[in-house]
């Protein structure tokens, strides 16, 4: 039996559509798209953790590290997007690997809050570092792409292509990974760690692997964000409410499907953009209100709408 993975097919179609759309999209939409891809990547990392039963309230830590690592390399003369994003991703992954040894021992709210505590420590370090512009942050120059140095609108178009390709690879990779034994162990750890141990595998190891993984994708998202915006600063990159937004996106998306995180991120950006535009005095009210509405009435996120749609059809 030839098994065709429909999520991969769906992601591939979306990838191709967006690839072409890149050249026709309005600039502001491409920019929102870029941010959605970056934030969606972080939410993807949270999804992987969430399937293991863990939620992090501090993933701005890895987002921030990814962003700052990439941005700091531009200060010392590196400008290639491939290198910067790789470096940001790996820097976050490394930190997640190290902190993982401590964090993998904790569950539930303690896990969530320890992450938050560490992200606050990073925030403090950045604010105290005048060389990195303290609270002002600093600008990131336009990256080059293997020697190609785009100008004007081409910067965003190229960056979008670049991000799209890597996001596609990462997302399909995550999806396939979730279907492997190690990926499937998310369920096992969430459901019953004792059984996992007595089947001969370390639940903490499973968690650690997933934690590193979520750190890597969050770092990837951060590095992309730094390049897309051309600016890093601690309040937008490492503060606790940024972590809250990532969890928001994850809840918005639901954890049913890897592709949903990007839809969630897009919806989040759109809510925020339009709230900012049409109700500048009460945009927080609208953002908070939408979040509450989703928690109350759409507990499994946007993905559950699609599930419902399917059920009503079939």
């Amino acid at each position: 039996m030839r098994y065709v993975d429909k999520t991969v097919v769906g992601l591939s179609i979306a990838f191709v559509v967006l690839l072409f759309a890149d050249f026709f999209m309005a600039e502001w939409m491409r920019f929102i798209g870029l941010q959605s891809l970056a934030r969606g990547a972080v939410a993807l990392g949270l999804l992987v953790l969430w399937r293991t039963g863990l939620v992090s309230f501090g993933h701005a830590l890895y987002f921030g590290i990814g962003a700052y690592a990439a941005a700091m390399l531009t200060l010392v003369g590196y400008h290639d997007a491939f290198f910067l994003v790789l470096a940001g991703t790996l820097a976050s992954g490394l930190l997640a690997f190290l902190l993982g040894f401590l964090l993998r021992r904790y569950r539930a709210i303690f896990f969530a809050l320890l992450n938050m505590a560490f992200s606050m420590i990073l925030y403090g370090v950045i604010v105290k570092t005048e060389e990195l512009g303290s609270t002002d942050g600093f600008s990131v120059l336009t990256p080059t792409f293997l020697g190609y140095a785009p100008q004007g609108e081409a910067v965003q178009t190229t960056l979008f292509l670049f991000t799209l390709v890597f996001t596609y690879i990462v997302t399909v990779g995550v999806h396939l990974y979730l279907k492997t034994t190690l990926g499937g162990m998310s369920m096992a750890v969430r459901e019953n760690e004792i059984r996992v141990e007595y089947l001969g595998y370390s639940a903490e190891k499973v968690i650690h692997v997933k934690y590193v993984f979520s750190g890597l994708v969050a770092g990837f998202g951060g590095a992309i964000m730094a390049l897309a915006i051309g600016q890093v600063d601690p309040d937008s990159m490492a503060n606790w409410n940024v972590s809250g937004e990532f969890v928001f996106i994850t809840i918005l998306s639901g954890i049913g499907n890897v592709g949903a995180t990007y839809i969630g991120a897009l919806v989040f950006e759109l809510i925020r953009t339009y709230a900012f535009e049409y109700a500048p005095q009460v945009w927080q009210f609208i953002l908070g209100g939408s979040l509450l509405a989703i928690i109350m009435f759409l507990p499994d996120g946007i993905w559950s709408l699609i599930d419902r749609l399917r059920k009503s059809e079939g």
Partner: protein
Amino acid sequence: MTVVLEVRDLQKTFGAVVAAKDINVTVNEHEIIGIIGANGAGKTTFVNMVTGYLKPTSGHIEFAGRNIMGLPPRDITNLGISRSFQVPQVFTSESVFDNLQMAYAITEASGMGLLSPLYNDERAARVDSHLKRYQIAEYRNATASTLPQGVRKLLDIAMAAVSNPTILMLDEPTSGISVEEKFGLMDIIMEALRQDETTVLFIEHDMEIVERYVSRVLAFYQGEIICDAPTAEALVDSGVREFVIGEEYHRTRTEAANGQSNGQEGDDNA
């Protein structure tokens, strides 16, 4: 006869409380051993120590020629000692098939193999034949949380047996099971394990079960083994009669069946 497990001078104290004292046991290949004793006598503590869930205060546990004391459960499982639980430890929101598939996958995969797909047809076939041996194939697609207690117990034991362990320790396999079902359940388990030539140690309160399936008995009282002898001998031992069976024998059979939800002994379901 080959010795597979040797326990010497095992001690476990929780503060001032002595949970296990001077435990010395030698287990031979293919033995079926029953562990009896009143609630709080130290039976589950013994199983917890051997399988690595509790770290003994002192002593020595040798399995297959190496000291396994202080190893975590996963390492001991991988070496060949597996266990089931008084309260079944399964992946409650998954189907019976997915439970066993995961058990097989974890048992079989290691290293890069962990990155191969969870599902493959060969594995599925093994899962299905395992389901048949434990006679729970009809529940294949049922969610674990919806299973009747007996089936859930079987699933728990079936999962423990997936790795084909040298020794399988069963913590009260018949607790919470009605009297009518007990023997049927034990027949299924013992038949499957006999085929695998597994050495079995199981904790049991029902002396009829002990008499029927066990060749040798370890009787626990206040953290100590007060009797280690062939079944027939043990059941007439005066100490055993006074401190273990005495209680048990005065109960009616129904009470014995319903009175197993002991909250004091062990913490394996924490």
